[in-house]
Each structure stands twice: as structure tokens, then as C-alpha cells.
């Protein structure tokens, strides 16, 4: 990931922590400072209807002309829902860079390279049932501020294994992605995140024949909890290299974030359903990078059993030789 597009808007900032305030904010979401008189009071959030999947919980925008189709993530039935909270929309759409055909090929290549414990005919027999281009959603945030930490480490220890340490450091986080998708799992999102080129974005949904885009279906207050959780997790990661010594335990981190800016992103991906020996599996092909595929694939239990038997046999042989 490299440059991010400038938001360009002149949003009001919190007087205490300089984070941008959102419409309808009574208090700053980062530091809890009350907002004097709602400077954005007249910004009206349009009430939109969404389609919610009964299976995986993903939400997509409802378009009357399309009606209620099946869920692109899991193929379950979807129902119309009118949410009470304003629905947050993606502001930035990362563009697709590979075609349907390249996605199909990527899946085949991936199935062939999964290693020994997969069925040998997986690549040749797997048949793609469905291929759906879509945008899944996530927040991306930047933050500054300071972080203080305390932990035990082996450095400077005397009789006990551990000695206490503490420290503080400036915090600078840039383009940290927090998945908000309900349709994809956290693991699937994490697998895809690193490979996106976010300089290739549009501020409107780019024209695409069939691609649907997911909605942010988390309530705003819940969203902020998730983002502050991710901020703390990121701060912990930054703290680890600051701890002296080779081992540590009981790391605590306190953060004082300033200028926390989060943006709503939509990331392109192909969701593929493929069939192998009458069973359906799901794989996600990155919308820009054909070498990045995540998903589920069958395991060849015959091969696993063969290896296990071979190992047992080997142990038996070694044991016999040793005792002889």
C-alpha cells in the first residue's frame, strides 16, 4: 500500500485531540470531549434500505430494480431491512485490476499449489460453480499520539526470571485496515488486505457489470469500539520491539491517540464457489492480485493416513534397531 487519496473536505476537528468529528456527534469518538453546538447538525443522512443475508449477515444496498437476489458471499436468501442508525457508505472504492477469466485461472493455479495433503486430482476435477465480483468493506485509519507501555522481560533479571520495564514512544499509525465485512471472515480479510494498491481508487462505485458492494452494517458506536480495539492492537505491536531482552510477558499499553482519521473503503474481490466430488467450497480471489487467494479446499485423508502410517512404521523400525 502506498499513498492514500486526500479526503479534501474541511471537516470540523475536535478541540482536544484534533480528530475529525462526524455528523451527529455529541462527543468526540476518540477523547469524549463534547462538541459545542453541532456544526454539522443540518447534514441529513439519507435513510436507505439494505438487504441483509439470512446466512452470513452481510448487508448490501437494496436496489428496487434488482429486487432481493441471493447473497453473493454465501448464496443464502436476503431480506430487506431498514436500519435505525445511519448506514455508513464506502467513500473509496479500490478498483478491480483482474478479470473474471484471470480470477478463474488464479483459483485453478491455487488449487494446484496447495501441497501434498490435498487430493491429487483437485486441480483437474474442481469445477467452478459460481464466480461473483464484489467489494467487501473495511475502515482504514491513521493516528498519531503517544503510547506508554509496561512489561516484564528477561533483560536485567536477577534471581527471578523476569524484571519489570516501562517506556513511552510517539505513536504514528498509517493506513491500518480494520475489516468490517460480515460476508467474509476475519481470516479471509486479513489474507487479502496486504495486497491492495489503494492508490487505484475511485470515490464513486466504479462501473462494473455485476459487482455488488457490501454495506457497513455495524452501528456507528460499535464501529468505534472496533476501531479503538484495532488501535490498541496496533499500538501493542509497535510496543513489542521497544521491550528490551529476548522474551517478555504481561505487556500493557495505554494510548493517547490524536488526529485519528478513519475512512470507509471498499475492496474488490471475486468470491468463487467450486465443486469437488459433489461438495461445495468457497475461495476468494483478490480483485487486483491473482496470486493472492484465500479459502477452503478439501484435504486428502488417504494421503494424511499414508504419511501417518509411514511415520509410525519409521518409528517402529528405529525402535527395533535401537533395541537390537
Amino acid at each position: 500500500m502506498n499513498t492514500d487519496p486526500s479526503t479534501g473536505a474541511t471537516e470540523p476537528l475536535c478541540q482536544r485531540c484534533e480528530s475529525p468529528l462526524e455528523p451527529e456527534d455529541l462527543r468526540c469518538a476518540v477523547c469524549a470531549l463534547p462538541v459545542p453546538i453541532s456544526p454539522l447538525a443540518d447534514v441529513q443522512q439519507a435513510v436507505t434500505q439494505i438487504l441483509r443475508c439470512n446466512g452470513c449477515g452481510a448487508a448490501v444496498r437494496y436496489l428496487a430494480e434488482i429486487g432481493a437476489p441471493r447473497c453473493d458471499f454465501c448464496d443464502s436468501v436476503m431480506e430487506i431491512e431498514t436500519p435505525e442508525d445511519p448506514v455508513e457508505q464506502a467513500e473509496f472504492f479500490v478498483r478491480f485490476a483482474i478479470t473474471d477469466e484471470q480470477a478463474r485461472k488464479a483459483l485453478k493455479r491455487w488449487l494446484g499449489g496447495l501441497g501434498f495433503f490435498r487430493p491429487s486430482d483437485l486441480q483437474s476435477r474442481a469445477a467452478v460453480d459460481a464466480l461473483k465480483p464484489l467489494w467487501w468493506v473495511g475502515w482504514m485509519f491513521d493516528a498519531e499520539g503517544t503510547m506508554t507501555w509496561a512489561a516484564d522481560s528477561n533483560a536485567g533479571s536477577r534471581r527471578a526470571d523476569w524484571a519489570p520495564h516501562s517506556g513511552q514512544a510517539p505513536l504514528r499509525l498509517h493506513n491500518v485496515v480494520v475489516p468490517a465485512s460480515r460476508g467474509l471472515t476475519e481470516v479471509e480479510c486479513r489474507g487479502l488486505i496486504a495486497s491492495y494498491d489503494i492508490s487505484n481508487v475511485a470515490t464513486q462505485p466504479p462501473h462494473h457489470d455485476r459487482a455488488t458492494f457490501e454495506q457497513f452494517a455495524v452501528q456507528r458506536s460499535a464501529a468505534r469500539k472496533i476501531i479503538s480495539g484495532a488501535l490498541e492492537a496496533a499500538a501493542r505491536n509497535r510496543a513489542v520491539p521497544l521491550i528490551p531482552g529476548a522474551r517478555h510477558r504481561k505487556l500493557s499499553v495505554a494510548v493517547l491517540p490524536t488526529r485519528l482519521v478513519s475512512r470507509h473503503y471498499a475492496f474488490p474481490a471475486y468470491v468463487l464457489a467450486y465443486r469437488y466430488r459433489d461438495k461445495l467450497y468457497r475461495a476468494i480471489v483478490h480483485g487486483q492480485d491473482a496470486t493472492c487467494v484465500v479459502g477452503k479446499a478439501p484435504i486428502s485423508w488417504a494421503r494424511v493416513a499414508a504419511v501417518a502410517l509411514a511415520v509410525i512404521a519409521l518409528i517402529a523400525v528405529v525402535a527395533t534397531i535401537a533395541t537390537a
Partner: protein
Amino acid sequence: MTASPANEPFHGLGCNSCGARLNVPPDERTARCPYCASPNIVMRPRADGEDPTFAVGFVLPDNVARERARKWIRGAWFSPGAFLRSDVTAIRGVYVPAYMFTAEAHVKYTVSIGENYVVIETYTTTDSKGRLVTRTRTKTVTEWRGLSGQWASYIDDVFVTASKGLHNTELEAIEPFDTRALKRYSPKLLSGWIAEDPSMTATQCLELARAEAVGQIGHRLSDHMPGDRHRGLKYSTQLVHEDLELILLPIWILAIKYDDESPLVRLLINGQTGALVGQPPRSWIKITVAVLAVLAAIALTVMLGTRGVL
């Protein structure tokens, strides 16, 4: 409804007994102070102090609040009979003034961190045959190491009462309030409810709030410490970018005066979460009787037991 004080649809009441200054809707026929059940209330002009910034709305409806109060009274077994017969219709939903404090805290601390380790020590003892033997055992020893450091965070959700009628410890007992449901104050919000004017100044409350914030920081610092345990935590706190806002909190109040001699009993219910606090009176006669009954039962059991009946 308009917000102008001239045709304000509330009338002001003052309690000469506890000092509460209340604004009561016109259809509210209250002859007693909801805080202290005193009939000594007088009309007073509406105070023109600062308007609250925010309010947390009532979620718990009056029938639910009344039912909770009834259950609470009935559950007080060791209370005098007169108390158990108390009426709950006097329960009132009151918007109680409080100050909400937020700040940025910068803390410097020193502490002793205890790191445990295990030693094997030998000791001599006598075995079953009376011989002197040497054995070993493991023992956990704590090595104390000094640590100093800094800690910084935002301080949020500190509430202190701005009402002389409601003690801060009572407020703490029914906290927390979910501030995600905070609404910007408007007089419309109060329609049909009693609202109290603040009877403590912002300056008084600021000191209380700072003290509460420092206490809260102590707990968070304790959680922050590494080691197996710690002691002697000392810290100095610098609070910057402080902010204090007058807000209204929804509280159901029932003041019970079940006889003229006994002190007032007060039940408070968090109007948002239903959390309840109150100390029912104790009837020493009932407690003595119960203790005697238990003792008698024990004595009887022992007697029957020694005679081999049981």
C-alpha cells in the same frame, strides 16, 4: 412547547427540608418533596442558571420502576412491619443534575513490582518412626524491583452529583450510565418529568470530579502494572484539556418515611439501566427473634442428637 422562561410549563418548588430545587410539570400534584418526603415545600421562581448540555433519557417506565420498588420493599424481611407496608406511589422520576468530566491525563508513577521465583529449600523433620530426616520443599519467593514510568490516557465517564439532595456515593452506586444514549438537552425532553436545578457550583463539582478521576486512574494503573504483584504505587497526575458539562441523569426516587421517629429511607433506581440502591431499615426485634429461633433449633438438634433420636 417553547423554551422561553416566560411561559415555561414548569413551576419551581423548593424543599425547605433538604434544599432540593425542583422544576415540576403543572399536572404533577406533589405535596411532598420526592427526595426527602418532607411536606415543607414552597413555590419559588425558576432559577435562571446555566442550561444543561446533555441529558440521558428515561428508559425504565414508571410501572416497571414501581414494581421494582415494591419487590425491594417486600424483600426486606428484617425491616419493621410499617416499612413493609410502605406505599410506592410516591416514586418519582427525576432528572437529577450532575457534572460530566472528561480530560487528558498524564501520569508519572513509581511502584515496587514483585517478581516471583521458586527456591528449593531443605529442612529437617521427624518421620513416622520418630527419626530425624532431611527433606526438600519448593518455596515461592518474591523479588521486589523498583519501576518508574509514565502513563497517559483520556479520562471519560466521570460523573459527580450537582445536587445537594443526592450524595455522590449514592450516584456511584447506580452508575454506570450508558453515555452512548446521551442526547443534547432540550426543554422538550423534560416534559412530564420533574427536573432538579443544580444546587452545587461547578467549582465545587470540579474538585470532586478531579478526585474521582485520580481514583479511576489508580485502578487503571494497577491493571497496567507487570509482575506477579505490586505494592507502594505512587503517582502524580496532570490533568489537561479538562471539560466539565452539566447534564441531567434519569433517576427514579422513592423517599420512604414509614414512621415519624425513624430516619428517612431512600431508594434510587437508575432510570436507564434499572440498577437499584437503597438501605432498608432493620427491625432489631425481628433480627433478635430470628437469631433466637436459629439458636433454639441448633440446641434442639444437638440435644436430640446426643440422645440418639436422630
